[in-house]
């Protein structure tokens, strides 16, 4: 119905592209043959092959969720997408083994530098397969597993198979079914009981082929009393036709474990970003999602926590920035399933120009539970009068012993604020980005330092492009 022009916004480092030769290519379009091809190229066990075929069937039968979501979903042409491309099957272990053209891309992204500086391990995904993966020795000594999902299911089937698809079943939604059918890449992490991974584990994801959907699959298990933080940063080069990214991320926090999953995302504005993220927190466990969505044509993402054990805690802190031609449909879900569980949602959205932000939340506390608490805050900032923002908080709290607190606000960057800042010497773009940074500042403080710096820079780039 709506036509969506391709907007030309410079995206700094994200806007470059090198020709890469792909050894494996599943061709265009989606059928059983596509799924068979992926499964055989990857040499997968039969149970997984069947899992994929079942998922394809569910995907085909499920309707597009346009009855509640945007009709723009109808503009995804599934028959024109490439579902699998890989430049090789085995993830490279050392930097020397990485092909030169891929290395060039990574160097521009600063991956090796970043690793040297502060990473405990790097798992950088290049198209479908991890092209470079490395772990610091001390981590492997402690029994921490950090590999690609393909390697994970082959070498650690006893852990992988137990949890894979359990938090997010195939049929959860149309796009989780699609991912289950064609997934490749993504990370598999296992942290043994009591191990506290001090530095964040990090993965870089990039799309580098036109019309190529990226369907990574991540599974992270933090065993009893362990701690782990995972960070993903996404940038994609800009292309003329639409690109689909549809990931599934499952987290399992065993009793007393603490997990943090951080995303700073900067997709180019032709990307459909339709991601299912959910964690399950057992007794006394904590799962925290920190989610920043900048860019993309349409993002639909509602990180969730199922609070399954007593005193489990779930948190979602999210920032969404919708510029011209972009729609950020984001939010959070908190499913309370045990007594004394607590959850906290803080969502901030910024709508610029014709950009559109939607907050969609679900908090569920059933009647039989006692002493559960939820706090939800949604704040929207509008940069000009064309912007649109909607809030759909669905909160179902039953029973007397439970409490919920909900606050929502909508504010604008006023002309007075802009004039005040310009009188001090800031140009319009600088003034705008300072106001926006101020709006998200209390959330950004929750981020690891290097990410907060990157996020502030991304906001500056977005704001520079937004003022005439």
């Amino acid at each position: 119905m709506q036509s969506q022009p391709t907007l030309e916004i410079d995206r700094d480092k994200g806007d470059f592209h090198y020709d890469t030769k792909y050894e494996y290519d599943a061709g265009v379009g989606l059928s059983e043959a596509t799924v068979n091809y992926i499964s055989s190229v990857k040499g997968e066990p039969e149970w997984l092959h069947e899992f994929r075929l079942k998922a394809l069937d569910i995907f085909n039968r499920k309707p597009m969720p346009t009855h509640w979501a945007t009709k723009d979903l109808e503009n995804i042409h599934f028959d024109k997408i490439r579902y699998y491309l890989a430049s090789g099957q085995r993830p490279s272990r050392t930097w020397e083994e990485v092909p030169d053209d891929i290395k060039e891309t990574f160097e521009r992204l600063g991956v090796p530098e970043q690793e040297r500086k502060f990473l405990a391990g790097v798992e950088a995904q290049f198209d479908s397969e991890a092209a470079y993966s490395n772990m610091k020795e001390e981590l492997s000594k402690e029994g921490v597993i950090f590999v690609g999902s393909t390697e994970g299911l082959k070498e650690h089937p006893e852990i992988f198979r137990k949890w894979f698809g359990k938090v997010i079943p195939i049929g959860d939604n149309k796009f989780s079914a699609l991912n289950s059918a064609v997934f490749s890449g993504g990370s598999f992490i296992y942290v043994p009981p009591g191990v506290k991974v001090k530095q964040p584990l990090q993965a870089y994801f990039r799309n580098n082929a036109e019309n190529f959907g990226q369907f990574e699959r991540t599974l992270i298990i933090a065993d009893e009393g362990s701690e782990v933080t995972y960070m993903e940063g996404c940038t994609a080069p800009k292309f003329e036709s639409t690109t689909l990214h549809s990931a599934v991320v499952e987290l399992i926090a065993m009793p007393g474990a603490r997990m943090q999953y951080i995303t700073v995302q900067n997709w180019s504005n032709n990307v459909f970003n339709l991601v299912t993220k959910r964690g399950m927190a057992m007794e006394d466990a904590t799962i925290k999602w920190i989610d920043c969505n900048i860019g993309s044509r349409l993002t639909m993402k509602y990180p969730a926590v199922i609070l399954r054990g007593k005193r489990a805690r779930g948190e979602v802190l999210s920032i969404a920035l919708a510029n011209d031609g972009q729609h950020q449909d984001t939010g959070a879900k908190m499913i309370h399933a045990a007594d004394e569980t607590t959850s906290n949602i803080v969502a901030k959205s910024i709508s610029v120009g014709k950009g559109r932000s939607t907050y969609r939340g679900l908090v569920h506390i059933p009647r039989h539970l006692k002493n559960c608490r939820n706090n939800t805050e949604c704040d929207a900032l509008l940069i000009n009068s064309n912007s649109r923002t909607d809030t759909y908080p669905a909160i179902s709290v039953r029973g007397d012993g439970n409490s919920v607190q909900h606050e929502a606000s909508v504010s604008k960057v006023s002309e007075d604020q802009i004039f005040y800042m310009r009188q001090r010497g800031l140009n319009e773009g600088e003034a705008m980005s300072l106001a926006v940074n101020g709006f998200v500042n209390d959330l950004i403080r929750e981020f690891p330092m290097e990410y907060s710096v990157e996020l502030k820079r991304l906001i500056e780039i977005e704001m520079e492009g937004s003022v005439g």
Partner: protein
Amino acid sequence: MTTNSLQIENLAVQIGDKPILKNFSLTVPKGEVHAIMGPNGTGKSTLAKALAGHPDYTVTEGRALLDGTDIIGKEPDEIARAGLFMAFQYPTEIPGVSIANFIRAALTSRLEEGEELDAVQYYRRLYEKMDLLKIDRKFTSRSVNEGFSGGEKKRCEILQLAMLEPSYAILDETDSGLDIDALKVVASGVNAMRGAGIGMLVITHYQRLLNYIVPDAVHVLWDGRIVQSGDKGLAMQLEANGYDWIKEELVTA
């Protein structure tokens, strides 16, 4: 002659269709402090905002030369970086942006591409000026003007003035809403800045402020233009007799 002053010539300013300033002329030489007095609604704040380039104020005639360069029609931030500072009568809140970051951003906007502010030096200077203005150092991390008292807001304006070191400053009713102690602190901050390198235009309704910031010249604004100029004695006269005698003089003239 024009290179060392803020020279306003025959300025006419309107808001929408409504003319406010008419044929307004005034020269403030660098190194001097001039006061503009006048009853409410005569165009005092309009003068400040029009010079600062506020988009709601349309200049229909005249020019304003800042050290010889006309600033009329320039963007507000260009005017600011060219050396004109305005202390606001009603400073705006900027939630989430700390005073330290705000002033740093303002200073950085004046640097060449690739140049960076020395953080240690910056904070040393900031603390020095804050001490002078009796602003608690904890304020550096408070959001700009958010939840500030009237006095705190005005001191914060003077702090920015002191940090940015402009060539010309317009103080728009900086005394409004201040008790006598806050007024003295603000005035001593302004006096500490006086010198050959800066010209100041102090806009006020009351003579009170001018007991503490003693001006080199006083001008009376009436119906959009200056009708009387004199030394600080003129301010005393206004204090004693009110503005009515000027009105009468204009009618009989």
